[in-house]
């Protein structure tokens, strides 16, 4: 346990830095929330819709931006070798790395999401659901992102390729979550979407580490 807690602390600080973290997470969220409506075009001024969209885009972006640090740095500087040399199975190590990643970026952004959404004019009643979607979605993103990061280890490919691998896998959570939010707002049954989202996240958490560990072993051998 001491091992895993040490690892999770390392991963969060690597992704987040020490202290003062919320400022960066908040600034990042604010940046995305400012940038997005402008890029999409101000004619789409239904801010409430943008509000949840900004949450997804911020989560995706944060996940994509941290992918390179997730395995590649450790691979290049030899840390991955040492992480492997341990009674902890590599699958668990990978899972903990993803979890640390999620704690450092996904979770703070999930807390920021409902606040920003209300600020942007979303119905406050939606905020628990937005939070839940962002939390589960961020979890799924972290574990799927990890697969992409591990797969592109050692390949001489930039971050774009990892994004190409990973983006299609990011789509289902967005569809499930978006559907749940839309249904909730329209007074329709919405638990189904959340259940699917949860199932997807659970599957990512359960099977992602297997894929990551296999990819890491492949890169190292």
């Amino acid at each position, binding site marked *: 346990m001491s091992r895993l807690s040490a690892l999770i602390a390392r991963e969060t600080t690597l992704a987040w*830095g020490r*202290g*003062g973290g919320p*400022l*960066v997470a*908040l*600034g990042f969220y*604010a*940046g995305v929330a*400012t940038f997005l*409506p*402008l890029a999409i075009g*101000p004619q789409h*001024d239904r*801010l409430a819709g943008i509000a949840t969209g900004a949450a997804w885009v911020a989560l995706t972006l944060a996940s994509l931006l941290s992918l390179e640090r997730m395995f590649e740095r450790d691979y290049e500087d030899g840390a991955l070798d040492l992480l492997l040399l341990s009674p902890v199975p590599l699958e668990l190590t990978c899972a903990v790395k993803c979890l640390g990643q999620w704690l450092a970026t996904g979770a703070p952004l999930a807390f920021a999401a409902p606040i920003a959404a209300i600020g*942007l*004019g979303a119905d406050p009643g939606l905020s628990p659901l937005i939070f839940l979607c962002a939390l589960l979605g961020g979890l799924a993103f972290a574990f799927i992102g990890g697969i992409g990061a591990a797969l592109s280890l050692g390949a001489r490919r930039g971050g774009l390729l990892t994004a190409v691998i990973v983006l299609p896998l990011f789509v289902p959570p967005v569809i499930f979550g978006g559907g749940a939010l839309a249904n909730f707002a329209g007074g329709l049954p919405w638990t189904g979407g959340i259940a699917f989202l949860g199932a997807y996240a659970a599957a990512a958490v359960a099977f992602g580490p297997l894929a990551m560990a296999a990819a890491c072993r492949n890169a190292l051998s």
Partner: protein
Amino acid sequence: MSWAPAFLSNPDRFMAFSRWAAPMFGLIALGLAVVGLYLGFTAPEDYQQGQTVRIMFIHVPAAQMSMFAYACLGVASFLSLIFRHTLADCAAQAAAPLGAAFTFLALVTGSLWGRPMWGTWWEWDGRLTSVLVMFLLYIAYMALRASMDDEVKAARAAAILALVGSINLPIIHFSVEWWNSIHQGSSIFRKDGPSMPAVFWVPLLLMALAYMSAFGSLWLVRIRGEVWRRKAEIAAQRAARD
């Protein structure tokens, strides 16, 4: 203000000056604000805007101060970058949170005012967005400073960022001319004189001066605090080494 850097660049002289200047500016701000607010709230209702015109006395000076604070940040950063002067760096570091607070105030009051005036809290138009960008730049400045351990390097990196971000100032100012913004253009400082009656512009002017003095006072206080903190840190390092 051009004499100020030269005169104040000596830390001892600065500390002696700010010891009495900071409270004095504070008192002036208080006096001006009392008079300004009194005049502002006893002014007649605007025939178009009704009571909401009174937000103006909060909003307009706050918006102007947010830009003024950024200009101060930029000048201080420039001085610290060129002359490697620590006092200038203290000044820059001290200005950032104040500027962020003024910007936040301008955004909130503007938004509150926009609801009755434009029928919307927010609009992605040039003026509003560029002010929001300035707010984000303040945050970025503070975040960058906070995430570097080496203070000298953090100071220089942040100063460069502040200077780069100053490109946003003219964008804010001219945004109302460059885009057909919903925000109104200049109505006070115009070649043909203020385009509003004296009952409005006199309290507005008083409030602007009050904000300015408040900013001056708070800024000096924060610079003093920063100077003290650094002195204490150097002393602690020296003690640790011996």
